[in-house]
């Protein structure tokens, strides 16, 4: 058994404080995700509602914004905000701030499209039947439209959150020591003593990402069932 663990390179995890370092890296990734997700959900919902109003100026802005974000790889966006903004305008963001900005820009774009789509899929007659019952626009949104919107956006939102968590692995490119970077450091440091560490470390990171994202998927399944 010990041979298998060493052979697959899991032994490095018990050297020094490697476990703690990996968990610390995961925490960094999750921190960036958490801030980005919160900003994206709030800003994306707001923008989505605005987009569903079919106002021309908002449509042009949102179309442009969404297209740019979709076309641009997140890594390029990250470089522009971190390196580019510093050179062009002297905006020196910390790597963490730059990451949150980029992931929020991306998340807001995707979230707004989800919200717009779900709002537009709610039949106009739902607004009318609410109005016919004497509900104001605000009450119609609070009690009728938004609950249905949340139900319809839930699967897409959960998908977006897990994608954001996974994509935070890119932030190591601007010097943030998140879980993948920690993994690489551990592998590098033990290249001589445990040449097979790559498998063990990356397999562990896989497991860590899984443990971070799986509860979110479970939560969404639970919420969806509850909402039906």
């Amino acid at each position, binding site marked *: 058994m010990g041979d298998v663990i060493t052979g697959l390179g899991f032994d490095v995890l018990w050297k020094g404080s490697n476990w703690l370092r990996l968990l610390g890296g995961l925490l960094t990734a999750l921190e960036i995700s958490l801030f980005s997700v919160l900003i994206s959900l709030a800003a994306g919902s707001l923008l989505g509602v605005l987009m569903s109003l079919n106002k021309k100026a908002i449509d042009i802005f949102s179309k442009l914004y969404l297209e740019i974000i979709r076309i641009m790889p997140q890594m390029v966006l990250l470089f522009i905000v971190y390196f580019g903004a510093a050179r062009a305008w002297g905006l020196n963001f910390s790597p963490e701030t730059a990451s949150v900005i980029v992931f929020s820009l991306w998340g807001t774009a995707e979230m707004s499209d989800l919200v717009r789509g779900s709002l537009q899929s709610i*039949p106009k*007659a*739902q607004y*009318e*039947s609410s*109005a*016919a*019952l*004497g*509900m*104001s626009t605000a*009450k119609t949104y609070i*009690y*009728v439209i938004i*609950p*249905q919107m949340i*139900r319809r956006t839930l699967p897409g939102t959960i998908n977006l959150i897990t994608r954001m968590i996974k994509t935070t692995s890119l932030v190591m490119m601007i010097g943030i020591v998140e879980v993948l970077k920690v993994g690489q450091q551990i592998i590098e440091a033990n290249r001589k003593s445990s040449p097979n560490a790559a498998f063990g470390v990356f397999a562990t990171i896989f497991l860590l990402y899984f443990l971070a994202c799986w509860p979110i998927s479970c939560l969404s399944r639970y919420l969806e069932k509850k*909402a*039906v």
Partner: protein
Amino acid sequence: MDKRELLSAEHVYKYFDGTPILQDINLKIKSGEVVVIIGPSGCGKSTLLRCLNGLEKIAEGKIELDGDMVDPASKEICRLRERIGMVFQSYELFPHKTILDNITLAPIKVQKRKRTEAEEEALKLLERIGLSAHKDKRPSQLSGGQKQRVAIARALIMHPELLLLDEITAALDPEMVREVLEVVLDLAKEGRTMLIVTHEMAFARAVADRIIFMDEGRIIEEGTPERIFEAPETERLQRFLDNMSF
């Protein structure tokens, strides 16, 4: 009982993109009266109904409910709509709420009634329409006829002075039409004021105190059911009635 005038529409005009939909509509409904509007598809009868509770804006004319102006731009429109119940062709129950919550939402949130009191009345209404056993189900678990009966209960709990029924059986399978219309006949017996748009001629005849025939955005004829069905005065009504029967 003195039959006072509850609703009046005077010289109402309405256009969609310049096309006239309603032209010089004059309509008066007395309290306790059941008025049925018939007419070919696209004649403007549904639009007229939607104008009466301010879901559509009118271009000209005046609509009043018991002396209060119906104006969708006014702040009072929500108050007014509480007094005018409306049931739609496609039921439009709230899919995320149970049957009971569908009925109690507006009385609790709009009329600020106590939940216990609203639920008590909702249960009575559900019993009356024979759906007590379904109170905790979602709309998606009900048949079309059941959903439409719930929609009627949802309108009734607001204690509206006037009930607008917009082709409420048009989306139903034939075998479900009867269960819905029986509820409406029952309401008519109770002395409710209703304005009904329907394609069910036998029902129109049975339920109406007065029938209005519309075509191309105008009121062409109106009269008692007997008069309308047995002695149509205009060729257009004659032709319409001929088309409605085999």
